[in-house]
């Protein structure tokens, strides 16, 4: 398969680019909800518009009311979300959440998917338990209790966790903390008793919750897929989240790059446009190169994932690491090349820097993924 968009994908990209720039722009969305101190960190009206555009259920099967598209298509949406810094539950709900639920029973999908696809509900993903992404270790426990389970433990950095209608939780149903086996995924309804949130605002104005589960009673229907055999599904969810975050990062990087090169073409010093200085030209050209490479790595990984290739795992980590390194370079260079105004809240470039930091951390940073590349390559 050639590494560029098919005609259908190019059409989708056109539509989504226009939609996100209009409806998801920085002023209407990010700044608006930040300045009103919104406890969700995103706007429900826009989420409803995502649904009307058919974006919420892109990855769901047609039988479930979705569009049965793949990671390339989801990545198209995420890239535009990144470019516009649009706060939205798309990555956690429509990409990771739907990937998780797709491994669940008819009943479970019937319970949650219609609301998600209609843009009425939101899902959150609770995997990590420490400030760094370490999904190999899962200590939160769900003990068998009657027909169901009793869940106890804590989860960190659950994006939009306090706003979610259901929280997808990876918990241990057997074995010890670092075992591969013994993991089970649950779809935990938000009103289950024993859940407490520490709802925090992050550097990029997104909301994330540190959640404590204290003997939360779950009936057996909350289980997604197999009891104790959830690691494979968890990996699928992780891959979806990682490549999704990588796609979004390329959008953030591209957005930062575009406003920076535009600035180089308008700001004058020493009687010249600053873009005439070779020192800045070379740095901009270097950044361009890195962005092209990150973009290619991302689409390669998306295609491999969509094709079910065994090489997908490695390439997803390559893509996440590369996208994170590159986007980080883009925002750092962006602020520097703006000079003093780059440090002001009035200019958008600083917002890109904040988003980059947050997204880099999400589902494993460049160091985690480089380490993973080493291990997957056998060293």
């Amino acid at each position, binding site marked *: 398969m*050639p*590494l*560029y968009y098919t005609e259908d994908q190019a059409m989708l990209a056109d539509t989504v680019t226009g939609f996100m720039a209009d409806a998801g722009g920085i002023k209407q969305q990010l700044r608006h909800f930040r300045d009103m101190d919104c406890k969700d960190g995103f706007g429900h009206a826009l989420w409803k518009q995502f649904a009307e555009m058919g974006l919420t259920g892109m990855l769901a099967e047609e039988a479930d009311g979705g569009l049965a598209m793949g990671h390339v298509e989801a990545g198209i949406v995420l890239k535009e979300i990144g470019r516009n810094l649009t706060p939205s539950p798309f990555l956690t709900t429509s990409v990771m959440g739907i990937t998780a639920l797709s491994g669940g029973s008819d009943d479970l999908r019937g319970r949650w998917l219609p609301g998600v696809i209609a843009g009425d509900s939101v899902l959150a993903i609770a995997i990590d338990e420490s400030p760094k992404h370490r999904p190999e270790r899962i200590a939160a426990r769900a003990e068998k209790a009657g027909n169901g389970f009793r869940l106890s433990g804590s989860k960190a950095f659950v994006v939009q966790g306090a706003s979610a209608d259901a929280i997808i939780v990876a918990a241990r149903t057997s074995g010890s903390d670092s075992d591969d086996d013994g993991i089970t995924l649950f779809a935990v309804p938000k009103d289950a008793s024993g859940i407490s949130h520490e709802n925090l605002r992050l550097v990029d104005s997104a909301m994330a919750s540190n959640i404590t589960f204290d003997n939360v009673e779950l009936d057996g229907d909350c289980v997604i897929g197999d009891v104790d055999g959830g690691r494979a599904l968890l990996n699928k969810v992780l891959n979806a989240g990682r490549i999704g975050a990588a796609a979004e990062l390329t959008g953030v990087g591209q957005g930062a790059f575009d406003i920076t*090169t535009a600035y*180089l*073409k308008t700001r004058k010093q020493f009687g*010249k*446009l600053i*873009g*005439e200085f*070779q020192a800045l*030209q*070379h740095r*901009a*050209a*270097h950044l*361009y*190169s*890195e962005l*092209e*490479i*990150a*973009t*290619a*790595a991302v*689409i*390669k*990984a998306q295609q491999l994932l969509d094709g079910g290739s065994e090489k997908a795992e*490695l*390439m997803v*980590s*390559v*893509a996440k*690491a*590369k996208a994170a*390194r590159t986007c980080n370079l883009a925002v750092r260079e962006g602020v520097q090349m703006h000079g003093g105004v780059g440090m002001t809240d009035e200019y958008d470039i600083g917002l890109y820097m904040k988003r980059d930091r947050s997204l880099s951390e999400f589902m494993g940073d*460049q160091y985690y*993924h*480089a*380490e993973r*590349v*080493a291990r997957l*390559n*056998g*060293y």
Partner: protein
Amino acid sequence: MSDLDGFRQEIRDWLEANCPAEMREPARDEADICWGGRNFKFKNPAQKAWLEACVAKGYTVPDWPEAYGGAGMSPAQAKIWREECARIGARPPLSSFGIWMLGPALLKFGTEEQKVHYLGEIARGEIRWCQGYSEPGSGSDLVSLQTFGEDRGDHWVVNGQKIWTSYADKADWIFCLVRTDKANTYQGISFLLFDMATPGVTTKPIKLISGNSPFCETFFDDVKVPKHQIVGQLNRGWDVAKYLLGHEREMISGAGGGDRMNAIGAVVARNGLDDPILRAELAMFDVDALAYAAMGEKFLDEAKVGKAHPAQPNMMKYVGTELNKRRHELLMAAGGSTALEWDSERTNGGTPARSWLRTKANSIEGGTSEVMLNVVAKRILELPGA
């Protein structure tokens, strides 16, 4: 799709039957590469057999038209050919400036007669070409070149000096930039082809830091070049030269495939890797190399359907060569004192050290990294005054 699957099987079977085992290992050094040409000495019978088998099928230049010695493969078929060769580790049967540089320029600018004649010779490995661009005073600022061709009716008489002419002492013919109008800078250069055996051509090898002498000073002293040996129009050689540079840069970038894009951590680890910081650097390198490989693949896919930015090879040359230099720095660090050996047998005559030194030229030859960044700033980013 099934057509292509059939094609893949056909290539697989053919490779199985025709690619000798010795040719399924990476070339260890310069002497392992088959350059072809009048004076080429095959290193072993396998190298000769592999070349001949490929020539017979047009596989030395799989995507050139059959009329010019190629196999007429479509872009999708050529991709399969590359993938299948890579799968068994088959070496390129023939490497040459004719294939990488002159060929594409002739396909675009050559007359039908020139194509049939010169491309056929290149495809069959009969003539080895060298590149006469750089001069002592004209490196990055190539357009300032002074070698002059005086019009004598049916021929030019060329005088001047080139430098850094790779393999000038081994090449049969040269493609050469010659000033044919002193009053015009860009539009005063012609692209000429001539035999290195023409009276008045002399070469003097230059020794490199790697200890090898792959390139020369090349002198032209009243060299007669018949008028029909011009490619493109008189005084419009710069267009041909630039087009050729695009292909040269794409080739040097390594983005078309080959070991420049491979991860190296696993290879290093086979000999033991007990330094966690080095391991981390290798992992970061592997991330960059594998991502770069995806970009190379994407570029080739896009180029075939006209979606790639024409200046993209400049970007790839910059990144690919900087990456290759980093690769060899890491390989040297991993090799420790063994990699320092200059002529020992176990290093095959100092291959690690010599290769490492050779890579330093990657970001100079074919246009320096700084010049590549200038071109990206100007042609792709359209920055002011670039």
